[in-house]
């Protein structure tokens, strides 16, 4: 269990929750709390219920049983998986980032204050100068940052990201991890899903392992262990310690890779 202090308020909590779609249960017996200042990775194989857990925390999916509570008035922002986006949609980066700001007047003109806000957030994320490009004309890392910018423009207290590093290269993943770390240090609670154990999960302060239920929760040292990983992924994995970091070796995958050579 993590140390608890008085300044950590609960932003969202799930108690004894089961959830799924069309009478098909994906998650059962979930007890989970999100506090201010959390930086948590949800880890598990595809179809294990990672996105379902995110949707429960977002409040867009109601539990089949149990209770989901969300802190009143807490601003939540969400960054979707890049694969779910319609990249042919006619929209520029500025138009995309701005849509998360509610329209203040009846005439939909962008005010100079709004334009400055967009420029500031794009600058902070290191993608100033792309604001008039079409969203398809950005690199994967820039696209990810654009959606992060859209989320940040809401000035959220809780940020949820679905597979923020899938399909991006190693250096982009590294930058993204740093960026999220900085945002968390500024007081933003962050929950993300990932299937990347070594590149992402091992670097986060807190992990939740999911396989239709919560298999384990704690620091990487506590949950990146062979028994928890086998219960999560259904395959034996070896764990090494390298420069104080956990490195997970997927035996099945390594065997396959060797066999392919």
């Amino acid at each position, binding site marked *: 269990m993590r140390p608890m202090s008085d300044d950590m308020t609960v932003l969202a909590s799930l108690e004894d929750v089961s959830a799924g779609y069309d009478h098909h249960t994906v998650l059962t017996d979930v007890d989970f709390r999100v506090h201010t200042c959390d930086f948590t990775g949800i880890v598990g194989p595809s179809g*294990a219920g990672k*996105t379902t857990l995110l949707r429960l925390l977002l409040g*867009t999916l109601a539990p089949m049983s149990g209770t989901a509570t969300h802190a009143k008035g807490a601003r939540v922002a969400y960054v*979707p998986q890049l694969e779910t986006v319609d990249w042919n949609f006619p929209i520029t980066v500025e138009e*995309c980032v701005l849509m998360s700001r509610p329209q203040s007047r009846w005439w939909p003109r962008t005010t100079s204050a709004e334009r400055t806000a967009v420029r500031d957030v794009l600058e902070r994320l290191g993608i100033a100068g792309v604001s008039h490009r079409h969203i398809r004309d950005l690199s994967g890392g820039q696209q990810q940052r654009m959606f992060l910018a859209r989320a940040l423009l*809401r000035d959220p207290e809780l940020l949820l990201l679905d597979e923020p590093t899938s399909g991006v290269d190693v250096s982009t993943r590294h930058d993204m991890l740093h960026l999220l770390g900085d945002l968390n240090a500024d007081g933003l609670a962050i929950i993300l899903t990932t299937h990347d154990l070594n590149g992402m999960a091992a670097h986060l302060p807190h992990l939740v392992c999911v396989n239709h239920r919560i298999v384990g929760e704690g620091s990487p040292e506590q949950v990146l262990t062979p028994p928890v990983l086998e219960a999560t992924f259904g395959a034996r994995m070896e764990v090494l310690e390298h420069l104080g970091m956990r490195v997970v070796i997927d035996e099945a995958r390594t065997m396959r890779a060797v066999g392919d050579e």
Partner: protein
Amino acid sequence: MEELIAPLGYAFFTKGLLVATLSGALLGLIGVYIVLRGMSYIGHGLSHSIFGGFAAVQLFAAQFYILGAGLWGVASALAINAVSRRSRVGADAAIGVITTASFALGVALFSKFGTSGPAFDNALFGSILGISVEQIIGLVAVSILTLTFVLMRYRALLFTTFDPHVAEVSGVNVRRLEAALMVVLSLAILATLTVIGVTLVAAMLVIPAVVARMLTDSFSRMLVISTIVGAASGVVGMYLSYFAGVPSGTMIVLVGAAVFLVVLAITGGRGLRKTAGMDHHSELVAAPAR
């Protein structure tokens, strides 16, 4: 030049020109949302469904037909909206059955009890004859309503169209907005029904928006271009319809199609590629990814 001014001497033509221009602009504007949401099929179905109500109400309570057909249209729009929300699989089939059945009912009622041929043909293919002042007032009112809706809810509509799931999380009432869009769409179809025609309304929802998409990558510019292309097709189509003596709807659609071909020739495959994905039928609720 004189040939263009001469028809304006006829009151029926000036009325027709006004209605055609406004109809083209209205369908062009709202068509952007319909096309980008992949709802072209819903627009097509809705126009057929409205025809059923139009026929039924005209026979049984002719004096209230605008009101009656309006109610029928809004009811079908909300029903279609509910069907497409509830089940992803089978929504197309359900919409197909409901709307074609309504259309068939309209045809049956017209054939059995209806006044003779012209009224029927006019409703199907559009006519500039016999446009009443009430119809013009109705069209102007619906146009003002649509424009106000699009302007006042601009960002929320854009967010819902681009990314409904994230919009919902970000405080947009997606469900209510989608229902409102369907109501506005049904009113727009109803108001333009007599001049464009039931069978051709869907084309005028799609063509200007696709042309606009081929010409720009910006959403706000797409709205403006689509509206202009729709209005221009209305004006030119109405003149051609007058000179050629064919139903107005057919000429308006043919002009739109000609504009599409010209833009296609100018932009080449580059423009057409931008429209990729528009033929996907909309999933009004984001699919439950896991």
